[in-house]
């Protein structure tokens, strides 16, 4: 099990590397002493203001996303791209924050809800709903009612999964992750099986729900998602100090007067809601949250949630918006972003595993 001291030790690593880069830049003989001083000052300023820097990068990528290659068709492009931009940002927020909270709750920097099968659970629920209701009544359901129903089911199911995973195998981290991963495979196989059992028209409905799609976003869901994100943001922001205490470990948190049961329940609700939102909008992405949280832990100055919650949302939004801009407008490869994110996230996961392995040796 990783403890919060491990979490803070990543932080010291980050400062170490930043000073190392600092030294190397000042050792460069090409600059005059004054320029060196300027550069060092700039670097310390950058390292000291990760949030502002991230916000600036996000603004730049948003502008690029909205304006690149529009070729004069503004009234056509702006609403279309605006909707997509909003969706990307909502997804970035949902995945980033849910993963960060999940890592806090489980005291573990290499977990994400997706890795334990939470979002394939959502896809399975979709398939089950289609299976029992039929595609026609499924698609004609009132979107708000449908989404509420899905979230309630999702929350109940993820509570069960969480209980099972953390009561049976919380002692052994590797077993926990492996069981979670296999649960994910099981849910995906079950969805695939259901998809084969229903008729072809229904199959299309399920199929479109089970792939990560950053290009086609359901506009109906966007409004609901925005609303949900706003509500969760209020709760998460109110819990931010309690989360800091929670990172000390369950026993310490209880000792320090945290109502652990209630906080854990609340956090799990928020996580389930956010995972369902992100999955409903773009489909499952396994490693994105992990990638974003690892990046955030690198660049954040300390592990307080006040800073990291904002930072993780910004980093996730940058990854999605900038990535989508580059792939769509610069490289002309529209659908590749989810594959690339999975690839980078998978490599990050392996790197984290090997790093923790080396530390524990």
């Amino acid at each position, binding site marked *: 099990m990783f403890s919060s001291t491990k979490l803070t030790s990543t932080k010291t690593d980050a400062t170490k590397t930043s000073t190392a880069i600092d030294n190397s830049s000042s050792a460069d003989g090409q600059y005059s002493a004054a320029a060196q001083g300027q550069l060092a000052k700039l670097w310390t300023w950058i390292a000291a203001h990760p949030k502002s820097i991230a916000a600036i990068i996000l603004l730049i990528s948003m502008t690029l996303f909205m304006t690149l290659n529009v070729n004069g068709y503004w009234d056509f492009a702006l609403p279309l791209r605006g909707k997509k931009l909003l969706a990307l940002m909502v997804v970035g927020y949902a995945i980033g924050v849910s993963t960060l909270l999940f890592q806090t709750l489980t005291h573990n920097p290499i977990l994400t809800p997706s890795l334990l099968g939470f979002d394939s659970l959502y896809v399975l629920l979709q398939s089950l709903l289609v299976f029992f209701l039929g595609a026609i009544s499924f698609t004609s359901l009132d979107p708000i009612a449908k989404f509420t129903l899905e979230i309630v089911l999702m929350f109940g199911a993820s509570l069960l999964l969480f209980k099972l995973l953390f009561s*049976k195998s919380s002692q052994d981290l590797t077993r926990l992750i492996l*069981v979670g991963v*296999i649960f994910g495979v099981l849910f995906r196989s079950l969805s695939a*099986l259901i998809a*084969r059992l229903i008729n072809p028209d229904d199959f299309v409905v399920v199929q479109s729900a089970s792939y990560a799609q950053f290009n086609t976003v359901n506009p109906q869901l966007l409004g609901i998602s925005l609303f949900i994100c706003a509500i969760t943001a209020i709760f998460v922001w109110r819990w931010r100090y309690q989360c800091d205490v929670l990172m000390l470990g369950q026993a310490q948190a209880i000792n320090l007067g945290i109502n652990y049961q209630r906080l854990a329940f609340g956090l799990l609700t928020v996580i389930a809601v956010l995972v369902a939102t992100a999955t409903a909008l773009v489909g499952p992405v396994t490693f994105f949250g992990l990638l974003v949280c690892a990046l955030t832990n690198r660049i954040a100055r300390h592990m307080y949630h006040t800073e990291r919650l904002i930072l993780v949302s910004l980093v996730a939004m940058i990854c999605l918006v900038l990535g989508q801009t580059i792939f769509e407008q610069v490289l002309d490869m529209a659908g590749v972003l989810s594959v690339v994110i999975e690839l980078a996230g998978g490599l990050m996961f*392996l790197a984290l595993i090997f790093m923790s392995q080396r530390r524990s040796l």
Partner: protein
Amino acid sequence: MSLFSPRTHARLKSSTAPSASSWQSGTGNALHRRTVVPPWFINTASLILMGLLVLLSLSIGVADFSWSGILQSLLTQSANSDSSLLLVSRIPRTIAIILTGIAMAVAGMIIQVVLKNRFVEPSMVGATQSAALGLLVVSLLFPASALIVKMGVATIAAVFGMMLFMLLIHRIPPTDFLMIPLIGIVFGGIIEAVTTFIAYQTESLQLLSVWQFGDFSGVLAGRYELLWLTGALCVLAYIIADKLTIVGLGDNIALNLGISKRQVTWIGVGMVAMMSAVVVVTVGMIPFIGLVVPNIVSRLMGDKLRRSLPAVALLGASAVLLCDIIGRSIRYPFEVPVATIFGVVGTVLFLWLLLRAPSEQ
């Protein structure tokens, strides 16, 4: 005899085995129990089971078919529609299923012995995914090349994938036996992401899905014969079974008994790569057979390969036959691919293997 289980392996090296004391206790008991069930009994029972399943498999299908028609054509010495159906479709399909089941189960057993880990199988060490990648690349670069060339490239790719994986896990201590399948799953996912990326860019996703999704519906006479090669490889595995067992006992024991560990390991890796490549080329990936079947057999009759290999092969064949029969009858007259069925059955069995372990302590 379960001397090569990580637990005993660790005990040979040092007396402290922190995390290895969990599920191995089940097989560890087999040391004292010896075999409760004699091998001849298991083999006869699984042979009878397989015979029944073969008859069932031959008589299930969409086209009209009756055994009396076969008898009639045998008596009158003339071919009718029943006998040609049997010869062109049903018998090839059943043989293909049996050979695939045998190949995947035996390949799983070999890789488990060579890596000294109970929880791996060809798709968890990157073998099948690399084979699909190699196959895709050669099909794109040299679409006109002969099938045997494509298969050769797939085999080489599978060997490379497994080599990379073995390099990756080189530093993982043998006591941390659950880490290896976890890394393997992520590693396989990364290779799959690369493959999907290439397929996406070259618009050959449809081609790829044929290999990524095991299915016997396309098997007719003339399209499965390559699978006999895996039969030959299984015979070879039986011949060198004792050497493989000794390598599985650990490096020092192999050295003491005069077995070249390196040579036998490479033969094992090569055989697994070849079997995976042949299966991927002809029917596609079928996950979890190589994991579940060897585990069940070794629970029943220990780990001495010469004794357990026939049972592994027979049970592997029966498992795939059963799942194919379920797949063909669950939504008659449509067909559910065997990989989908095995995805559900296999994951449930694997979860059972993973989760029941801690309670045995």
